[in-house]
């Protein structure tokens, strides 16, 4: 594998390497936002059995523990930019933040890979 010499690879904004279970997505930095200009760890994501069920779990958690409710990433001055940036992840289908503001995303597990 030679990403560095592949002309095609240079056109990709995201490359992926994998250990077979977990993917490392390597996203090209951009000047779209402060977040996307910074090199290093960006976010992580979960495969879930059902996006709708996961969203329901998030809502139930927020109702039970309002002080720890996940934050709305689209809120505030930078929120829409952060959301656009997370929407650019080629795997995640629904982005959110944890109670501390760490961004993560969810993607629905393919049926053939159901746990």
């Amino acid at each position: 594998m030679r990403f560095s010499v592949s002309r095609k690879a240079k056109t990709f904004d995201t490359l992926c390497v994998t250990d077979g279970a977990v993917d490392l997505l390597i996203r090209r930095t951009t000047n779209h936002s402060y977040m996307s200009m910074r090199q290093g760890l960006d976010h992580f994501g979960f495969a879930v059995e059902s996006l709708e069920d996961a969203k329901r779990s998030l809502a139930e958690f927020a109702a039970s523990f309002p002080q720890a409710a996940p934050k709305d990433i689209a809120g505030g001055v930078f929120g829409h930019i952060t959301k656009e940036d997370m929407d650019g992840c080629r795997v995640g289908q629904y982005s959110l933040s944890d109670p501390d503001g760490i961004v993560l995303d969810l993607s629905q597990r393919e049926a053939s890979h159901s746990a």
Partner: protein
Amino acid sequence: MSAKIRHLALYTEHQDEMVNFYQNVFGMKRITRSFNDPNKGHISDGVIGLAVLKRRPSFAAGLDHFGFEVDDVENVLDRMKQKYPKTLVTKGLEQVAFAVFRSHEPAGAQFDISWKEHPKVQEGYKDEGWKQPRQINHIAIRASEPERVAEFYHEVFGLKEGKNF
């Protein structure tokens, strides 16, 4: 050579709330006991142990590092030394689960390197893990030259080319 991503760590001022969130929403379970508090420790989705660490001075809140379990650490360190001689490697702190060595890649993301036989690999990290409905499936890194970073993980850890987008 085999390398698996088995670890992810973050710093927070709100450890209990964060652990509660990941356990409740994603079904993560505790797999280690902290050396200074048996009621705390890493939680896992069956594959990746998540360390929810209390933020200390000089450490920013947020994602901090991730980690590989390897089967041949000498091979990994040799590859780094030969192909990436400017890469820094240091020993992990004593008493900290999983972290035997710490290093970094060309974009600056830091990772631990560990192996099952080492005494610091404790409790749940020794197990094969389990499957559950909600599991971490990707970790994203930003890099000005993604090609160099992908090459690094391939050359050093033998990660395979995944789907390119």
